[in-house]
């Protein structure tokens, strides 16, 4: 091997457009969020990993907090920058009907639609990003054995 190695994919001829790979190849979804329709793009694997990681927390209180934080991050990560800022402002506006249940509802729809293709992409590189499976196979918490 030479002293310098370029690990980037081989450059195309410049005329043909490179097809998107990974989660970028998953088509976006249009969903209604309390009266406004937004376009949601599948977020990066790092966001999915955060979501799956939240399910592994043993303490139920911490798990719920981590899950809620990962859920909100997921919805914001799937929006464009402008839309994300708009949703953030709408969340803070007391006169806007948008609230946490709307975000949870959209989150459920998005994960249901994207879980399968993302699961395949993750498994190809040895990552388990299946949120439901992580919740099912969570390690059992074992307490200290009771003294006799």
């Amino acid at each position, binding site marked *: 091997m030479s002293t310098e190695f370029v690990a980037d994919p081989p450059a195309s001829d410049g005329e043909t457009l490179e097809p998107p790979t990974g989660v970028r190849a998953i088509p976006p979804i249009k969903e209604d969020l309390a009266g406004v329709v937004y376009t949601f793009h599948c977020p990066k694997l790092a966001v999915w990993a955060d979501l799956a990681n939240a399910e592994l927390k043993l303490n139920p209180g911490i798990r719920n907090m981590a899950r809620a934080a990962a859920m909100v991050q997921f919805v914001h990560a799937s929006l464009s920058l402008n839309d994300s800022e708009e949703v953030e402002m709408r969340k803070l506006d007391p006169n806007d009907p948008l609230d946490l249940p709307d975000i949870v509802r959209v989150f459920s729809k998005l994960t249901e639609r994207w879980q399968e293709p993302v699961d395949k992409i993750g498994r*190809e590189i040895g990552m388990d990003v299946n949120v439901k499976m992580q919740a099912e196979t969570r390690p059992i918490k074992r307490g200290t054995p009771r003294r006799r």
Partner: protein
Amino acid sequence: MVRRVAAKRSVGGASVRPPPQRISARDDRDKPLVLPAIVRFAGLRFDYATASIDRLWSAYAGQDWTTFLPGLAAEGQQYELLARLADLDDPLDIDDVARAARRIGSALAGIDWWGACRIAGVCEANRFLFLAWAALQGINTEVMSLPHMFATGYAYMVDACEDVAALDLQLWTPPPTAGIPRWESADEARDFATALATMGRARPA
């Protein structure tokens, strides 16, 4: 168990140990593999130092691409890559890094990534048999470069199998792009029940 005790010498009344005897094979094993000095990926530059062949061989056996990128990069240079992965507006994703790491691993091994992982995996799973076979052939795996290790591993597999064409097909065919089947507890329970039933039938009356 053989225990080696260094002979003691007396110098000026004080007991001192002789310097350890240098064994050529062990010295060569400790010699690190020369890696590319610089790896460029996604506009980032990583300085690579050296790594032992044992570490890389284990990484191939475990299909651990993170060893090649960013694992081998100089300390502190990984954070820039991790920061870009965490940046939601940056299109760089984990699967891009995985593909780049596999390209590096493939270039180091001199063969296809999946073939390298399968050869290293089989040889690691049968480490004792592999080393015994190499000893019978008069091959010293202690002093080999990484491509030679893979060539020896392949020769071991060819020697142990009856259908070389089928082995080649299994070794060099990339995994299905549709993804690897997920582990399901129901599938495992069904397979276990099938195995038990088979054992039951095979058991003498």
